[in-house]
């Protein structure tokens, strides 16, 4: 099937999408330097800056979450590709308001390589930066290094961003981010591939009656290929795996996020959520907060990510704090 996307020259996709994003949200964000996405009004001096990096083609992730109460600067890479260290370093300099910078990195080979290089350079420059890695994809096995960072970036940006906004010091912001990170788990499933917008290639192949649990954020195939299941069955399989991995007990409070991959409808996400809620109720687990929508997409891939996170009172307060990020407004 031919790719049918509204683009111009493939090599201009990222520059043009960032331009459009900035033009459509002039109150909240602007492009600075080498296509860094920064807040329109920088944070007050003396507060911790929060920076992230990541490939493009996953809109609204990650730059859609720059704004008061969340990120200060995001470093968008090429389509599905981490940005290099030079622009990350630039972002960190920019987000340093005198209280240091929290650098939130999703565990993907390219991102981590860039981030490590950036940290080396930043340290050589004497910048005060702490890096936190998100790796909550349980499909990677038990070794944390093998667990990718999926939609779990969302609560981490949110709670760490809120802590920074409150004026908490870098160590405290870092600790909040790490605590959120330790307490979350995600699993992705795909039913239909996407095309790479620059090349027009299908990213993976799936049979007409197949789905795949453990699909990566960039369409990298996982290992849990199986026959297509109903919404309820899919939710059951995935939630069981997550609850087990996080060792959730009755009485605990969870945040649940369902993230659509792109072509999967909100209609379906709601149907899935309904079953998640039923299972939690049956097990006496409390649904503290929920968020259903598209936060990080993979083009027109069909599928979703299910994330659960154990919350405490501090994390809940920070999750509820206001934000004016274009794609995550909280009053």
């Amino acid at each position, binding site marked *: 099937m031919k790719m049918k996307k509204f683009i111009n020259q493939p090599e201009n996709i990222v520059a043009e999408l960032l331009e459009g994003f900035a033009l459509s949200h002039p109150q909240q964000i602007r492009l600075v330097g080498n296509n860094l996405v920064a807040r329109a009004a920088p944070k007050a001096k003396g507060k911790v800056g929060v920076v992230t990096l990541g490939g493009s083609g996953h809109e609204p992730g990650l730059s859609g979450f720059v704004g008061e109460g969340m990120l200060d600067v995001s470093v968008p890479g*090429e389509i599905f*590709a981490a940005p*290099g260290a030079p622009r990350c370093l630039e972002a960190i300099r920019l987000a340093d308001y005198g209280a240091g910078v929290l650098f939130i990195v999703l565990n993907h*080979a*390219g991102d981590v390589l860039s981030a490590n*290089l950036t940290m080396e350079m930043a340290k050589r420059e004497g910048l005060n930066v702490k890096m936190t890695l998100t790796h909550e994809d349980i499909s990677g096995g038990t070794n944390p290094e093998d667990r990718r960072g999926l939609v779990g970036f969302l609560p981490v940006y949110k709670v760490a961003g809120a802590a920074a906004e409150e004026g908490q010091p870098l160590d405290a912001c870092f600790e909040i981010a790490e605590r959120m990170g330790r307490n979350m788990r995600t699993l992705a499933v795909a039913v239909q591939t996407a095309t790479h917008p620059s090349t027009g290639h299908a*990213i993976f192949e799936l049979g007409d009656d197949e789905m795949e649990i453990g699909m990566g954020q960039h369409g*990298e195939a996982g290992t849990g290929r199986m026959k297509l299941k109903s919404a309820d069955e899919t939710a059951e399989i995935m939630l069981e795996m997550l609850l087990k991995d996080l060792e959730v007990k009755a009485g605990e409070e969870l945040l649940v996020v369902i993230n659509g991959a792109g072509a999967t409808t909100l209609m379906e996400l709601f149907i899935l959520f309904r079953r998640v809620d039923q299972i939690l109720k049956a097990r006496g687990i409390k649904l503290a907060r929920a968020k259903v929508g598209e936060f990080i997409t993979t083009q027109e891939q069909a599928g979703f990510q299910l994330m659960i996170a154990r919350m405490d009172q501090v994390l809940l307060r920070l999750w509820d704090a206001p934000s004016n990020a274009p794609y995550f407004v909280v009053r």
Partner: protein
Amino acid sequence: MSCDVTKNDFARMIAGAAAAIRAQHTMLSELDCASGDGDHGATMLRAVEKLEKAFAPGGSDDLKTCLREAGWSVLGVDGGASSSLLGVFFGGMADAAATDLAAMFEAGLAALRKQTKAQPGDKTMVDALVPAILAMRAADDGGKSLRETLHDAAAAAHTGAEATRHLTARYGRAKFLGEKTRGHLDPGAASVSLMFAGFYQGLSHSKGESGNA
């Protein structure tokens, strides 16, 4: 006698590598579809453009300055794992204590290996780089010419890359596919092999002024 390499030699090597990658970038992206996200060819294209620019006439005449600039600009390709690693590699070459070819490539490899734990056998670009640079060192120690040295390195890179077909990926995105990556050439190793073939071609066929060929 070790092969000293001039900025001009290196510029021709780079031109050859760029030509090789340009001719095969579609294939590289296809390899990456099988085991990753399908962008490797596009990234490599942008990377070789940066390399060419760093060595373009009008720039510095100092090889190390050019390499440092090359490394930094390849890091800036924003193309994921491979451009970061190659940026570190070229930038690292500038840190070599000596000025001979093998020493420079060894310094690049050392810098790269500080950023990744991948070993030969893990099905990454390291599988092509390590044997290529070992072959360089052997040829160099054996007193071979720059052209012969690059020939041996290219042959070793090719063999190393081809061998990745039979391996299981343990680094990069491909590791999540595990056993399914068997049978596929690793895209990064394929690129390295192409680049080394291009280094050799560039130095052999272009009518440069270098006396080392």
